[in-house]
C-alpha cells in the first residue's frame, strides 16, 4: 500500500511539527497547533450566535453587507452597542440608544428616525465581533 500524500489522511499519525523520523524535532515540547477561531471568537459559549449582515445601514460603524457578526445573547445591552432587535416579526440590526427614559434603535441612514422599542420588542443579542471572509 502506498503511503498517503497528505499526512492529514493518516489520522492519529498526523505530522504537526514534532513527529520527525530522523532528527528529534526541537519544537516537540512547544507544539500548539493552528489557531482556533472558535476559541478566539468564543463560539462555544451558549449565548454566542453567528449572523450575516444584509443592508448598508451600519457602514459608518465599519459593518458592511455580507459581514458575519458574532453576537452574544448573554451580554447586557447598554446605550451605544450595536444589537439585534426582534420587533413585530422583523429582525433588525442597529445601534441602541437611551433617550428620555426609553430605548430606541438608531439607523445609520439620515432619513430614518430612531425606532422606539415597544414592550413586545426583544433585544436578541449584542454584537461582539466581526468576521469578513473576503477583504
Amino acid at each position: 500500500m502506498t503511503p498517503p500524500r497528505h499526512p492529514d489522511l493518516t489520522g492519529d499519525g498526523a505530522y504537526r511539527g514534532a513527529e520527525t523520523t530522523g532528527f528529534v524535532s526541537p519544537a516537540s515540547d512547544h507544539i500548539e497547533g493552528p489557531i482556533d477561531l472558535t476559541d478566539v471568537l468564543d463560539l462555544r459559549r451558549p449565548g454566542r450566535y453567528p449572523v450575516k449582515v444584509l443592508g448598508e445601514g451600519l457602514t459608518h460603524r465599519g459593518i458592511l453587507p455580507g459581514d458575519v457578526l458574532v453576537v452574544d445573547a448573554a451580554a447586557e445591552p447598554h446605550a451605544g452597542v450595536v444589537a439585534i432587535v426582534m420587533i413585530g416579526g422583523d429582525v433588525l440590526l442597529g445601534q441602541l440608544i437611551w433617550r428620555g427614559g426609553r430605548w430606541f434603535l438608531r439607523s445609520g441612514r439620515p432619513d430614518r428616525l430612531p425606532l422606539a422599542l415597544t414592550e413586545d420588542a426583544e433585544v436578541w443579542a449584542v454584537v461582539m465581533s466581526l468576521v469578513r471572509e473576503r477583504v
Partner: protein
Amino acid sequence: MPAVYGLIDGNSFYCSAERAFAPALRSQPVVVLSNNDGCAIARTPEAKALGVKMGDPFHLVRGRRELRGVQWLSSNYSLYGDMSRRVYQVLADRVPRVEPYSIDEMFLDLDIPVDLAVFCAELRREVRQVAKIPTCVGWGPTKTLAKLANGIAKDHAELGGLCDLRDPEVRADWFRRLPVDEVWGIGRRTTEKLKAGGVETIADFVALDLRAVRDSLTVVGARVQMELKGVSCLPLQLMAATRQGLACTRAFSRPVTTWEEMREAVAAYAARAGEKLREEGLEACQLAVFAHTNPHNGDPWHSANRSARIEPTSDTRTLIVEAVRLLEPAWRPGYRYAKAGIMLNDLVPAGEQARLFATRNPQASAKTMAVMDTINAQHGRGALRIASTGIARSWATKAQRLSPRYTTRWEDILQVDTY
C-alpha cells in the same frame, strides 16, 4: 444524594427553537412534523387550541379550514440538538450537576443554599435570554416529584412557570387533585390496573400498602410510590448509558416496490450505521435487517426481517454485503414497502475481539474506512460513498419544510437587516 431535585423542561421545545430565529412565527400557530413531514410531533399552545393533536397526519389535516394559518415545519434536528446543548451549558454554569434526560428536559441538582423560588425564576429567565427557549421548572425531594412539579407548572399558567413540591402539605393537596396517570413511570397499563382497584388520584395510590404495590406493580411501582412519598430512589445520571445496540431505520418518502431500490436503501442505512459505529469506536457482532409495508395506507401487512451473527466489524462494505445478503431471500415482489432499517447489536470496542479465524484484514479495513471518514468529515457527509447506496435516492426521507440550520451551517446562519 441531593436533597432537592429539579426538572427544567422546554415549552414546545422544537417550536420554540424555530421561533427563536423567526420572530414572524411568534404570532402564529406552529407545528413541527416528524420525518418525511408525516405527522405532528410538537405544537405551540395556539396550534393545540386550534385542535391539532399529537400524531395528526399532516396530509389529512392540512386542508382543514380552521388550520389555514398554521405554520407546518419539517423537524430540524441539527438545530434542536444545538439549542439543547445551549440550554445544558447555561444550566451547568449555575447548578452543581445537570442530567440531560432528553433533548428538552434536564434534571438538576438543586441542593444549594439559596431561595429556590428566586433562583429558579432567574434560571428560567437566563435560559430564555441566552438559549432562547421558554421553560418551566419544578422541584422537590425526588426526581419523580420534580417531574410532577414540572407538569403542574406547565399546566397552571398562574404559577409563573414554577412549582415547588418540597412541602408535604402542598404535595398532599396536589395529590388529591391529580389523577394517578400524571405520575412519571405510571403508564397506561398500570393506570388501568390501578383504576380496576379503585385507585383514581395520586393520593389514592400513595395511600396503598407498600407490599400490595410491590405485589401488583413489582419493585418498579414500589419505587414510584417511595419517590412520591419523598424518599429518593433514583439518583442523577451524569453519563449516557453505554450503547447496547445501534439502529438506522427510516420511512421512505414513497413506497418502494423494486428490489434495486430496496437494495440501495438498505445499503445506505448500513453505511450510516457503519459511520455511527466508527464514531463511537465500536464493532458489531450481530446484524438485523427489516423492511415492511404500511397497513395504515390500506396495503396488506408484510414484514421481511432476518438477522445473523457476523464477524465483528465496522466496515461499511462488509455491513452492506451482509445486510443485502440477509434481506434478499426475505424480500417479496408485489408489496409496497414503506419502511426499512438496520439494527446492529452485540457491540464491542473496535479491535478487542479475538479473531482466530478472521477472514478479512482488519488493519486494511480500518485504514480504508478512516480515509473515507476523513474525506466525508472534510467535504460533508456523503461526499464519498459506496456506489450501491444509490445516486438519485428518490426514496430518501423528504423534509420539504425545513428551516435553516441557523447555528450549525455557515450557509444557513441568521440574516439580519440593518435598520
